[in-house]
């Protein structure tokens, strides 16, 4: 145990976390140089494209120190988005130290600061790493100064590296073994293992990623999930060396995996504690929280014929994503689909993209919603996450919506714009902190329903990427809610309805109408697009008709060419949804949800 080091890397986006991880893996000799693919760890397409880590990865690396001692370094990667803050916190809870990466060309960024706080919360040893020192624009002195000033860390302890060039990696590895403490724990005590991730293997079922704090786990043991009490028989334990490497046991201080005939990852809960059924621990490790969906949206196949395919795809996808929940849903405009619950908007986007790319689905999503509470005249309360189930307004006594406590960190020059955004989104109870000169933290109570609607995108846009955002759930609060309907050519499009606060209804309605106006192709006649609450129209746009759609001539009796063109045009419309006599393209449903820079 004395020769084990468990650590994570935290960094602002683009500061080189993945490259640094790659270099460490390469140094450990786990992958032959010629097989090396850039950013070994970000192995989902979406992760590579966006440069963010969604599913965290773990690597067990052997290391021989300068003094000639053999060490095991466990690197636990973390997802880098607010939707997955909980997953990050579980990964950090499994470590004794972190490498805090600062880009020598950009210096300390808001997210660096937020990450620092996270690491401090878990009492981790922090090693500042100044990366990209090989670049001409690198300003190492500036980075050192900011590490001292903004982070309050000792700049002399910062390790200077170029992950890309492989410079300074030896010094960094030595710092890891010298400065990050060895794990503590008692192999003879009752077993306590923290689940920090899980993934699905089509042949073996759920593969649970865990950190043992006390005790041991061996194949053949019967383990118990402390949150549910469910038991499983362990088939295999081991460590990750890019591929799974079975071992005889996992013991206190180790990071590794176990396979125990668990059918889906939904049977494992991140943050849960695993113990042995025959000799259970008294209590679970601190900090377990059930992953609860907070954002809801319906998924529909673009072509109603593809409902069966979508059902299959969701079932397969769900095997690897415990956080996704779904039930059947249906819409007049879109047919049969699924109501899904997500951890946040990014999670929603990831699920959408993976279903489309990896499962070849063509999807339409409805406006994301939170869970609203409606107290009815008869004294009952209904929970509504789907505008389709909005109760008869005459029966509603009052409504409630969930609030969050948002913490936004940013350079202070953006304060005015961010304050305005929060107030616009009905923020209350503002509080301002200045953790260091030039930087500020703004705290607000915000309705979650306002946050899931493009808040994060807007925040990033107005702070030019410098704003970071974290939140915790608060309670439900009274709210004056209404269902906003969108009418296209006088007909309500049920899939476009949303539950909104009355104060914000007009702005939301106008925005939806504008987006639809831009996305719905012009047709032969004028198409009114209206936003309405009940029978009351609160917003209106009009799509003017096109006036010409005819070929000038049929060349020498060539009717075939003309008919084929018409058939092709008709086929193109199959991807559109007919609402009454109006064709609405898939992009229109998506556009209603998207943010734009000019509003």
């Amino acid at each position, binding site marked *: 145990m004395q020769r084990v080091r468990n650590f994570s890397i935290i960094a602002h986006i683009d500061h080189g976390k993945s490259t640094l991880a790659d270099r460490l893996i390469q140094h450990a000799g786990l992958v032959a140089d010629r097989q090396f693919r850039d950013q070994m760890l970000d192995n989902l397409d979406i992760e590579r494209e966006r440069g963010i880590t969604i599913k965290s990865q773990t690597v067990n690396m052997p290391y021989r120190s300068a003094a000639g001692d053999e060490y095991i370094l466990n690197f636990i990667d973390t997802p880098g988005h607010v939707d997955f803050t909980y997953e990050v916190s579980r990964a950090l809870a499994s470590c004794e130290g972190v490498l805090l990466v600062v880009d020598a060309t950009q210096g300390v960024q808001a997210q660096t600061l937020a990450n620092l706080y996270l690491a401090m919360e878990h009492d981790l040893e922090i090693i500042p790493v100044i990366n990209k020192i090989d670049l001409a624009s690198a300003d190492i002195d500036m980075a050192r100064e900011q590490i001292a000033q903004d982070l309050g860390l000792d700049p002399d302890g910062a390790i200077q590296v170029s992950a890309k060039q492989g410079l300074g990696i030896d010094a960094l590895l030595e710092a890891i073994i010298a400065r990050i403490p060895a794990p503590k724990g008692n192999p003879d005590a009752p077993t306590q293992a923290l689940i920090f991730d899980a993934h699905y293997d089509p042949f073996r079922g759920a593969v649970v990623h865990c950190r043992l704090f006390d005790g041991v786990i061996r194949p053949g043991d019967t383990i118990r999930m402390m949150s549910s009490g469910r038991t499983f028989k362990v088939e295999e334990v081991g460590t990750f060396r890019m591929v799974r490497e079975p071992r005889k046991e996992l013991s206190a201080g180790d990071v590794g995996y176990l396979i125990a005939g668990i059918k889906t990852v939904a049977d494992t809960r991140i943050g849960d504690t695993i113990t042995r059924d025959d000799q259970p621990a008294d209590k679970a490790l601190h900090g377990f929280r059930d992953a609860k969906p907070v954002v809801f949206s319906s998924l529909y196949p673009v072509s109603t014929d593809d409902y069966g395919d979508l059902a299959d795809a969701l079932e397969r996808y769900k095997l690897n994503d415990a956080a996704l929940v779904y039930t059947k849903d249906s819409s007049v405009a879109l047919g049969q689909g699924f109501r899904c619950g997500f951890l946040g908007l990014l999670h929603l986007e990831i699920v959408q993209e993976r279903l489309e790319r990896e499962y070849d689905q063509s999807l339409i999503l409805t406006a994301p919603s939170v869970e609203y509470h409606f107290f009815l005249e008869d004294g009952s309360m209904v929970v509504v996450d789907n505008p389709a189930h909005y109760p008869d307004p005459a029966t509603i006594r009052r409504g409630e919506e969930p609030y969050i406590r948002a913490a936004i960190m940013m350079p202070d020059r953006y304060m005015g714009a961010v304050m305005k955004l929060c107030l616009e989104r009905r923020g209350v109870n503002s509080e301002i902190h200045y953790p260091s000169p030039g930087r500020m933290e703004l705290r607000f109570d915000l309705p979650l329903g306002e946050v899931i609607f493009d808040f994060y995108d807007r925040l990033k846009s107005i702070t030019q990427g410098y704003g970071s955002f974290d939140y915790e759930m608060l309670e439900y609060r009274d709210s004056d809610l209404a269902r906003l309907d969108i009418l296209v050519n006088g007909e309500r499009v049920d899939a476009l309805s949303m539950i909104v606060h009355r104060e914000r209804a007009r702005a939301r309605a106008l925005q939806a109408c504008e987006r639809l106006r831009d996305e719905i192709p012009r047709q*032969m*006649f004028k198409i009114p697009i209206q936003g309405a609450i009940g029978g009351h129209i609160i917003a209106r746009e009009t799509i003017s008709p*096109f006036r010409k759609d005819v070929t000038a*001539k049929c060349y020498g*009796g060539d*009717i*075939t060419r003309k008919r084929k063109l*018409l058939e092709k045009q008709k086929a193109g419309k199959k991807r559109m949804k007919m609402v009454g006599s109006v064709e609405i393209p898939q992009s229109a449903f998506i556009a209603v949800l998207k943010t734009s820079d000019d509003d």
Partner: protein
Amino acid sequence: MDIPSVKNSRLTGFAVRPNLADPGTKGGDVRGPSWPWASLIHEMPGPSPHPESPEKSPGLYIHAPFCVTKCPYCAFASTVDREGMASWVLGIRREARQRIDGSAPPFGSLYLGGGTPSAVPLAPLTDALSWIEDGPGLVPGAECTIEVNPGDVDPASSNAWRALGFNRVSVGVQAMDDATLAFLGRRHDVVTARAAVQTLRQAGFLNLGIDLIYGLPGQDARAWERALQAALALAPDHVSCYGLTLEPGTRFADAVARGDMPAPDDERVADLFLLADHVLTDAGYEHYEVSNYALPGRRARHNASYWDGTPYIGLGPAAHSFRDDVREWNAGNLATWLDELAAPERAPARRERLDARQRGLEILALGLRTRDGIAAARVAPGPAGDGTLSRLIDEGLLLSRKSRLVPTPRGMLVADAMARVLAG
């Protein structure tokens, strides 16, 4: 009007036969003595049979693919190489033998298009046509049209065309000012066009149509109206107004792709279209098809066969045929067409049999181009029931006339879109 006698035409060296279908000009003496049904011929085409009716006599289209120059907007099959003319004549005769058997009924119309048929010298032209009267012949009163380029028109050629039996001429006027003509790459100027029309009239072409192109870069409503008025001064029986279309592979299309020329703007083209409708309708022309206007009784009957389901046989490169729900088309390239004629079997790729659904879509798309419209029963139950049809009527795009649906001028402009939605 001074109408020269064809008996004195200079078609020496050819077995000059009298008119294929004599128009019975005012002089009354131009009919050839050997013309078997001369006494039955009417100058005016008879009333158009009911659209979609199957019993109209088939039309005959012959494609003459030769042009002196290639116009920058034209995607029609044509070649500037006139070497192949002799082989073209042989090909036409061969294809006629292959496709038209002895028992074929006489043709209801003849249309010699191109290319530039007027660029074909009289000798090969005569040989390309003479088989007709040796074979099925033409019905009495058959409309026989030749497309001519104003620059090719002189009294001799005009008389010769008349003598060959053409009773209708379509003149490629295209524009009524020299700058536009130059832009269009035409070989003629306005003076030539005016003279050509006069010469053709003098030769006895009582049924004369002209073609105009609009929607050109920079052409505003005033310029287009001036062109229309100048065209009306030519007193044509028929006017075709074609909105400039960018056909792939043309020089205009390339220029637009390169950004050297603005793409035609649909809104502006729509305005110009309605302006033409207004001007020409006021002048007594009937707007009977998207791009076509005619004085009463002067609709182009051959062209109408493309829209109303009349069978037609096309000979020559790129020519299309239609009969019994089968469409066929020839290779556009002269040499390929000739090779395929020599082959024992027709290439199956150039043939399609329409199913009921395809034919239905055609009938809608073609019928909605015309003043005759479509039978109301043709509209699929969906659009009829969900309000689409009534919306089109309410919007003034369609008129409901007894059991037919007839497009208004604004409706003609969106005929393709209407066909798509009404086909369900």
